[in-house]
């Protein structure tokens, strides 16, 4: 169905890594700068979409053997269970908390439970977007 797009494939190989890095950066920086779970997740999935566009579905699936429905489900479960974590401390469902630690290499580092929650969101987004893409494109 597709011609052999050498240029697209070569560029993609590089671009995918840049996009992936950017996605992770967006995801991590969300607390203080623009970014967050949704944007990070969407950017990550756009990298995968690019892969699927440049190569065909079979070879990408062979390279990254992931069941994206499971990824989405795991993401949703993470989001729910981190919300429940606060119940253990007698707080309301989905209460978040954050703290700062002085780590040897990184210096003053913030860590917040919201990051866990957001990682669930990001995984969910990635899983769903790619599931939708593959479902429609695979079915011929």
């Amino acid at each position, binding site marked *: 169905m597709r011609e052999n797009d050498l240029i697209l494939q070569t560029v993609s190989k590089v671009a995918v890594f840049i996009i992936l890095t950017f996605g992770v950066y967006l995801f991590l920086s969300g*607390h203080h700068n*623009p970014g967050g779970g949704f944007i990070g997740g969407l950017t990550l999935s756009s990298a995968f*979409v690019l892969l699927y566009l440049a190569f065909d579905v079979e070879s990408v699936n062979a390279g990254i053997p992931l069941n994206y429905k499971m990824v989405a489900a795991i993401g949703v479960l993470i989001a729910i269970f981190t919300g429940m974590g606060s119940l253990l401390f007698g707080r309301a469902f989905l209460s*978040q908390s954050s703290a700062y630690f002085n780590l040897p290499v990184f210096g003053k580092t913030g860590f*917040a439970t919201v990051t866990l929650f957001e990682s669930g969101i990001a995984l*969910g987004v990635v899983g769903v977007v790619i599931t939708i893409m593959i479902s*429609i494109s695979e079915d011929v």
Partner: protein
Amino acid sequence: MISIHAFILIPILTAFLIPFIGKQFPKWHLGWVTLAVPILLFSFFVSKIPVISANRTITGSIPWIRALDLHFAVYLDGLSLIFTLLIAGVGSLVVLYSIFYLSKEKESLSHFYAYLLLFMGAMLGVVLSDNLMVLYLFWELTSISSFLLIAFWFHRKKSRYGAQKSFLITVGGGIAMLVGFIMLQVMTATNSVQEIIAMRDSIQDHELFVPALVLILLGAFTKSAQFPFHIWLPDAMEAPTPVSAYLHSATMVKAGLFLVARFTPVFGGEATWFWLVSGVGIFTMFWGSFTAVRQNDLKALLAYSTISQLGLMMSLFGLGSAALQGGASIDSIIYTQAIFAALFHLVNHATFKGALFMVVGIVDHGVGTRDVRKLGGLLSLMPITFTLSVIGSFSMAGLPPFNGFLSKEMFFTAVLNAHEMSMFSMDTWGLLFPVIAWIGSIFTFIYSMFIVFRTFLRPYRRERLEKDPHEASIGMLLSPIILCTFVILLFFFPNLLSKYLLAPAMNGILPTYQNMEGFIPKISAWHGFNLELLMTAGVVILGIILMNTYRFWNVIYDLFPEKRSLDRGYQWLLAASESGSKKATDHYMTGFLPNYLYYIFGFLLLTVGGTLFLSGSIVFDPSNDAPVSLYEAIFVGIMGITAVGILFAKSRMTATLLNGVLGYSIAVFFVLFKAPDLALTQLVVETVTTVLFLLCFYHLPEWSKEDRSWKVRFPKIILSIGMGALTVLIALSVQGNNLFESISSYFEDSYELAGGRNIVNTILGDFRAFDTMLEVVVLFIAGIGVYTLVKLKAPQGGDKIERK
């Protein structure tokens, strides 16, 4: 006292357990298990007789929904005690009888007994509730269980028809009753029946008083099968005979009488109440007995006789309510006797009619038919059954030495007294009561005799019967024997019943007459030669004559052909409403999506636009606007042209790309409006969406041209412009009317509250994390939806199998 609550709930809870017991012990006949429940209930309520007969009441209340004044409140007085004893007592006998009537192998007993117990609990709830809403709840529950029991043999078409009919009529009446209850609640601001009774004087002039009265009576009339709502009861006879004996003669159909008795202290003395209850009652009494005579099916005959007897009791309650007109006085105490007679007959009817139903069940079981044209000469073959039927039907006909004689005499006394009433314009119409009652009693005599003579005497013709007739087993005979014993015992010792049960009930219904001389009469069989005795004698003589000349005068029934009966009216109404609603629905449910959207948008325009216009809240105040820069103006222009361009796009590819332009322009606006997170998200989402569109196009044909005729386009254009204008108006009005302080400043403390500097992100992840979590769940559901839509396909022909 909590225990009464428990006893209402025991049968209902057991009903849920019955199927499991049936599974666990398949060898047991479930009837034996079930039997324990009514016996337990009966002994409990018998143990309450000493308390109640000392003129005390037992009350208790469990709060349920306080804000709505909804409490599970119970109230046990003499009236409810009579009913509880009937429910539990007849219930025990019926369950015992059913053990031998329903075979374990053929019938689905767990269903039967579960429904029966459900009914028992619901009926107890009806007679014991003090809270209107709880009463209504149990009331409808009896209708539902009755529906299930009538449709017990659901493979028969007639069973389903009868079940649906009874359900529609009784539930319809129940809803009317609910409205009446709500009106009462509005008038008195309480849901407690006893409190309402105490407030009687203050609500009598309220404008809702009479409507509430009529609506509550509608509920009572439909339930108690009063004319013209009686048509459901004959069809309800499709139920197994134990059910007919229990629900449709002894208990459920008397719920309407209970309701009338319970509300007599509230509405009694009102002319509307008097005329409706006694008038409808006496006519039902006549019509039921008149129609019963022509029936060939023994059960149908008994059904019409039940209707007639219910009418008799209903009219007595109505006549007795006259005693409350103008307050309690020694002059009108004579009218209270009607209510006494009603209560007495209530008990008597339960005994003899229960026995008769069981007898008919035995005949049906033993012979295989209930058609009197085929029956005859069973006397020598079923002697015990014959004796029982004689006791039952002679009591029903009002002959001594059976209890029916006593209450029939009292009925005559009551109608004769009513004839002399000086209120409610009875001096002109009063004569009708004794006359109709007398005529009705003649027919009652005739059909009672028919049961005995046509079934057991006449020549025996084996060739017309399906089975060899034989006497029933002792287990089946036990219950009717017990009931018939009561029939005779009550004739000889009626005053025991009067002292322990009827007197407290009378005090409950007519509290103002309590302790007055002559309020509780002494029942005796012999009053000397008076008018009542003459009337009875006349009934017997005329009855015998008419019975023997039946074939000469039965042409009278041709005056009431099937075609023009009420039943046909009901069927026509049902069919007409079904076809009418189908027609109406077909008219607007076209299955064409744009039509539905027209309704939705049109309605939105009408309501929201109308509200905006009528409330005059359209405001336009651009003074607070930010200035427009050149770039922004350019982008607005681009978006406007793009949007209009989509409408004229020749190919779907162009349209999708133009949609993409719109999306990216919005991302630009997000940047201009200081929303970097949004801009990023919008860019990625727009890309992915466009890719998705293109993927789909790969599988779909090029889009076809829309209909270009003005007839199609004009309404579309009008509606579109309307929607756009409405949006603009709403948005401008919202900006112009600053009614509330913005809450957004709260989130600007996000660093202190949530430890994040990005306000948008802290809202998503912390302040409104619930939204975000559910949002990702929605996204997930959509993903699964897409996957299943595309991937899962029913195998060839799967649709057809499903449709079967």
